[in-house]
C-alpha cells in the first residue's frame, strides 16, 4: 500500500497545494489568452497523469497543447487514439489503472464516443472531459451549437457549463477535485460553447505554474483500482448478465440509482469550489429573467445591460453553472418575483428550456419562453435578444439599428 503521508511535490516537480489555495488564495496574474490555451494552463496545474487525444475542430488546439505538457513532463501518458470511441475507451483504461485523466472532444466526436460515457459513469471513473460543443451532422457543420450537451445530460456524468475562459480554467481544476471525492467519484464533463470560448482571446487571471493540485489518489476510489497493488479476490466489474434473475435486475437498477445519487452528493463540493451552482446578474428587482448557461448566459448579460440602460426595463440573468446536478432549489429561489422567464439557447431543441420547465413545474406560475434560440453557428447578438423580448412584451423596438 502507498503511504498516506502528505506529498510535497508532484512528479513534474510542482509544489503541491490545497485546492482551496490554488483556486481561491494563490496570487493571480492577468494573461491574455484563448479558451484553448486556458485548458493547457489548467491541466498544467492539475497534476494530470494521462490524456489521449483525437483531432476534431474546435477542440484540437487544446488537445495539442496537452501533448506539449506531456513533452514538458507535466502529463505522464499521452497519445493520439484511433477515433473518439477508441479515445474514450483508452482514457477509461488509464483511469481504471489509477490515473488522473483528461481528454477533450467536440460535436460528432462526442456522438461517436457516446457508448463510453455511461460506461465511465457505471465504472465510477472520475475522468474529466473538456467538451467544446459544436454542431452535429447532417448537414456538416463545424460551427458553435450545443445540441450535443442534451445527449449527455443523462449519461451519469456530472456536467458543468462554463461561461468564459476564466470560468473554464477554474472549472477544470475544480472538476478534478469534485469528481474525485470518494463519495462522488463519477466523470465530470466541463462544457463550453466551442469557438465562442476556445477561439476567443480574453483576459484571464491565473495562479503561478509552479504549484499544482495534490495528485490523484486511486486508493480513495470507492471501487478497487486495477493497479495490482491490492489483492484482487473475486473482483467483478461486469454487469450481472450471466444471471438473468431478480438479483441481477436489482443490482443493475440500484447501481444506476447510485450513480445518480453520487452526482447529487457532488452538490456541496461544487457549491464550495464553484462559489455557487448559479450566478445572478443584473437588477435584483428584474421582472424579466433570463435563465441561461454557457455563452447564452454571457449574451443574456449583455442584453440585460441594454434593457436596463437603454430601454428602462428591469431585467436580470440567472446563469446555471451546473447542469448535472441541476440547481433546482437555487433556480426556484432565484426566479421569485419574475414575470417572464426567457431561456436563450444555442441549439434548436431547447434542452435548457425543458430542464427549466421541469424544475419549475408545479412550483411557480411564471411563463417560460424558450427564446431566442439560434443554432448551426449563428451568433446571438444581445440586440437580437432585446428585440425578441420587446416584441414578446408588445413594446416598440427602437434602439436596434
Amino acid at each position, binding site marked *: 500500500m502507498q503511504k498516506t503521508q502528505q506529498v510535497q511535490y508532484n512528479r513534474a516537480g510542482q509544489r503541491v497545494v490545497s485546492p482551496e489555495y490554488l483556486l481561491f488564495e494563490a496570487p493571480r496574474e492577468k494573461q*491574455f489568452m*484563448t479558451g*484553448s*490555451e486556458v485548458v493547457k494552463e489548467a491541466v498544467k496545474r492539475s497534476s494530470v497523469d494521462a490524456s489521449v487525444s483525437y483531432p476534431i*475542430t*474546435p477542440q484540437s*488546439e487544446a488537445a495539442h*497543447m496537452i501533448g506539449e505538457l506531456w513533452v514538458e513532463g507535466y502529463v505522464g501518458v499521452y497519445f493520439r487514439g484511433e477515433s473518439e470511441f477508441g479515445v474514450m475507451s483508452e482514457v477509461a483504461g488509464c483511469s481504471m489503472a489509477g490515473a488522473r485523466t483528461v481528454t477533450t472532444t467536440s460535436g460528432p466526436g462526442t456522438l461517436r464516443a457516446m457508448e463510453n460515457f455511461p460506461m465511465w459513469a457505471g465504472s465510477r471513473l472520475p475522468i474529466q472531459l473538456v467538451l467544446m460543443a459544436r454542431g452535429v451532422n447532417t448537414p456538416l457543420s*463545424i*460551427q*458553435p451549437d450545443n445540441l450535443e450537451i442534451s445527449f449527455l445530460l443523462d449519461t451519469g456524468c456530472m456536467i458543468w457549463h462554463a*461561461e*468564459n475562459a476564466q470560468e473554464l480554467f477554474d472549472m477544470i481544476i475544480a472538476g478534478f477535485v469534485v469528481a474525485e471525492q470518494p463519495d462522488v467519484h463519477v466523470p465530470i464533463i466541463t462544457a463550453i460553447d*466551442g*469557438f*465562442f*470560448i476556445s*477561439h*476567443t*482571446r*480574453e*483576459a484571464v487571471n491565473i495562479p503561478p505554474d509552479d504549484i499544482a493540485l495534490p495528485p490523484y489518489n486511486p486508493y480513495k476510489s470507492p471501487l478497487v483500482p486495477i493497479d495490482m497493488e491490492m489483492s484482487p479476490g473475486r473482483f467483478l466489474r461486469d454487469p450481472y448478465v450471466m444471471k438473468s434473475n431478480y438479483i441481477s435486475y436489482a443490482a443493475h437498477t440500484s447501481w444506476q440509482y447510485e450513480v445518480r445519487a453520487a452526482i447529487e452528493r457532488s452538490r456541496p463540493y461544487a457549491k464550495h469550489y464553484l462559489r455557487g451552482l448559479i450566478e445572478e446578474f443584473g437588477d435584483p428587482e428584474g421582472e424579466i429573467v433570463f435563465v441561461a448557461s454557457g*455563452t447564452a448566459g*454571457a*449574451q443574456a*448579460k*449583455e442584453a440585460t*445591460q441594454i434593457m436596463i440602460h437603454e430601454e428602462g426595463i428591469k431585467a436580470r440573468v440567472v446563469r446555471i453553472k451546473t447542469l448535472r446536478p441541476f440547481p433546482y432549489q437555487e433556480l426556484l429561489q432565484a426566479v421569485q418575483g419574475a414575470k417572464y422567464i426567457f431561456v436563450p439557447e444555442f441549439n434548436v431543441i431547447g434542452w435548457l428550456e425543458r430542464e427549466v420547465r421541469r424544475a419549475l413545474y408545479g412550483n411557480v406560475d411564471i411563463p417560460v419562453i424558450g427564446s431566442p434560440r439560434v443554432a448551426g*453557428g449563428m*451568433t*446571438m*447578438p*444581445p*440586440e*437580437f435578444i432585446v428585440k425578441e423580448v420587446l416584441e414578446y412584451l408588445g413594446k416598440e423596438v427602437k434602439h*436596434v*439599428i
Partner: protein
Amino acid sequence: MSQPKRRRINVRMPAIGGQGAVTAAHIMATAADYAGYHAVSNPFFGAEKRMAPAESYVRIGIEPIYDRGEVVYPDVIMVFHSQVITMGKSYTMPFYSGIKKNGLIIINTEEDLLTERDHEYLESLNVKVFNFSATKFALDHAGTELSTNMAMLGAFFGITQIVGMDAVEEGIKARFLKKFVASGGTMSLDSAIERKFKKKLELIEKNIATAKASYELGQEWARQQGMESWLPSPKEVARV
C-alpha cells in the same frame, strides 16, 4: 462634428485568408487590454483558406465584455482587401451590413470602391469612410505586403484615439515575442516573414514602424474630421 461617447467599440475585419486579420485582431485586443480597457478578440469560426474570405472581430469597452461571436452590429469595419467589396469576399452582404450610426469604415484601397448608393446609405447613418492604401504603406515602411495588417491596425488606433502608440507597440511585441498558438498556415506565414527579416527583432521594428506611420496618418485624418477619442479613457472611468 463630435460623436456621442461610446461605452464599447465593436470592430469587424473582413479580409481574405493570409492577410493576418486574426493577428491584427489579437494585437488590437492585446493593446487595448494593455491600456486598461476590457477587450476580447476572436476569428471567424470556420475553415479559413488562403485567398478565401476570412474575418475577425474585436470588442473593446470600459465595462466587462460578455458578448462574443461574430460582430453583427459593428461600430467599425476594417476592409483588408479590395476583393471584399469588388468580389463580394465577405460573410455579410453588403460588407457594411449592420454598421451602427456614427460608425467608421477603413478600406485598404487606392481608389473609392463604393457606389453612389453605398455612399448615400452610409452618409444617412453618419458613417465615415477612410480610404487608404495599407498595402502600399506596408511596402513602403516594411518592404513587404505581409505587414498590411499592421498598417490597418495603426490606422484604426490613430483614428479612434483610444490608445497611444506605446500600447500598440506592446501588442505587437506580445504577439511576436511570446509563444503564440497559431494554425499551421499562420506558422508558415510567420516563418516566411521571419526569413525575410532574418531576425525577429527586425521584424517587430518594421511592423512597429508601419503601424506608427499609419497611426499618424489616421490621427491627422480624424483631426480633420473633427473626431475625438472614441472611448472614455479607462482612467476617467475609474474616477467616475
